């Protein structure tokens, strides 16, 4: 460990137990014993069955949620309060509906008191392919466009860590592949640490350096870790046909399959 730079993001023995507000006796442990690191410049994906607490992990990493047990370290320093070095791209609609696309992208810069916020927002809108849409309000944009605005909104602040919670899950397949390629291109320029949550294994393998598999909830934990040694730059559509991709897919799916079935049975039983 001597001299090695600390990981950009490290979750160490994290557990999250929620207490029901109406009935304090009711407890639900979403995740337990989660240790996870993301090195600087590394793209890590977390896959798992639905309802396994993937988003909980991301909220912990963002500092929006304090873990019941365990610590989060950001570049070696224990995290208290919000994670100021992280940008977070949410799964649900997160744009402010009363701000135009430009104002939404500029929001983070404005909060920090950056003078040339609108100009830099415009630059980022161009970079995500929305150069002419700065004056549109979110409701005037399509779902894919809104996701691009969200991406620009997160990246304009140049965060050291990027947290993404199934950002493209609501998009159609074509738009999704376009966005994934754009994300890879943008990431390749800056090489930030990325923690990417998804339920789509193809997406996870195509994008990441490493894929972590979570077990079915409750009390889910990482049960497998796979290094994706596919060469970059990748095209998310083409990489799916590479033999190594198929091998990795089979290996990870073998672990994930059982958990997905378990999660499904639990949902049926509930």
């Amino acid at each position: 460990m001597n001299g090695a730079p600390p990981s950009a993001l490290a979750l160490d023995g994290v557990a999250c137990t929620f207490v029901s507000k109406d009935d304090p006796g009711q407890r639900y442990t979403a995740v337990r014993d989660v240790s996870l690191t993301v090195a600087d410049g590394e793209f890590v994906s977390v896959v798992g069955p639905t309802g396994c607490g993937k988003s909980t992990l991301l909220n912990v990493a963002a500092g929006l949620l304090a873990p019941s047990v365990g610590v989060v370290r950001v570049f070696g320093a224990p995290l208290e309060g919000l994670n100021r070095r992280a940008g977070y791209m949410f799964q649900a609609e997160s744009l402010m509906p009363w701000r135009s696309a430009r104002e939404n992208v500029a929001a983070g810069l404005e909060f920090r008191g950056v003078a040339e916020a609108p100009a830099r927002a415009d630059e980022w809108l161009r970079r995500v392919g929305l150069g002419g849409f700065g004056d549109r309000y979110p409701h005037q944009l399509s779902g894919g466009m809104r996701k691009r605005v969200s991406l620009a909104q997160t990246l304009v602040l140049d965060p050291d860590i990027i947290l993404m919670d199934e950002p493209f899950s609501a998009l159609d397949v074509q738009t999704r592949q376009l966005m994934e390629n754009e994300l890879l291109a943008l990431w390749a320029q800056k090489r930030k640490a990325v923690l990417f949550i998804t339920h789509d294994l193809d997406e996870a393998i195509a994008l990441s350096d490493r894929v972590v598999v979570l077990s079915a909830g409750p009390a889910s934990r990482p049960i497998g870790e796979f290094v994706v040694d596919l060469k970059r730059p990748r095209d998310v559509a083409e990489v799916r046909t590479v033999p190594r991709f198929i091998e990795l897919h089979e290996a990870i799916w073998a672990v994930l399959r059982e958990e997905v079935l378990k999660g499904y049975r639990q949902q049926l039983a509930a």
Partner: protein
Amino acid sequence: MWNRLRPRAATLWIWQLGLLVVLFLLWYAFTAPGLLPTFVFENDRQAAFFFGEPLKILGRIGTWFTGVEIWQHLWVTLLETVLAFAIGTGLGLAFGLWLALSPMAAAITDPYIKALNSMPRVILAPIFAVWFGLGIASKVALGVTLVFFIVFFNVYQGVREVSPVVLANARMLGASARQLLRHVYLPSATSWVFSSLHTSVGLAFVGAVVGEYLGSSRGVGYLILQAEGAFDINTVMAGILVLTAFALLLDALVGRIERRLMKWQPRAGETEKL
């Protein structure tokens, strides 16, 4: 001819105006003494006594608006309405934001708010007259009590229903507590205020007129009160018509302001037929 007049978007106003004319003609026909045989009242002057006569009413409105006095009354009523609306909205916004953001204060004041809201506030008018005199202050106070609760409840609801994702996103983008208030809570709350704008302007107007009616020396409500004292039903009706037109005008104005300020809100689009 019929094709050009068929009811559609472009000819809507003709039909609306036509309906108004028909209503006035009916009103005239049933109240003009001796025009139709009486079937409800005992003599042919009673209908006119109870319902007024449109021609005389329009004549009264005509003499009002060619003179100077009416403008002063209208101005007072307008001033009361605007003041009641502005003060009520300001207070409602401030209290709504405060209570929505501090749940403990909200829990403590909850029964009092409920009590004040369910109280019929028109009965406060005499008290306000004692406190603030017969000038515009007492009417403004009555209007404020009416507007305040509408705005308050809407702001309270608006703040509580801010999307948690939008809020978390703003926090992750680095917004401080003050910036959250200014850039997230306030815009979200104002959208709710504007959705209640028509109601609150209407109530400010009600407060002003009812206040005048219960005791004043100026305003359109005062004109009506005076005429009623003399059983001058035509003047009462003229006052009501002027008030109604005035309220319509205010409502249209509010609609314009609303459309300008709420352009970020989605509205169902319609395709154009080519």
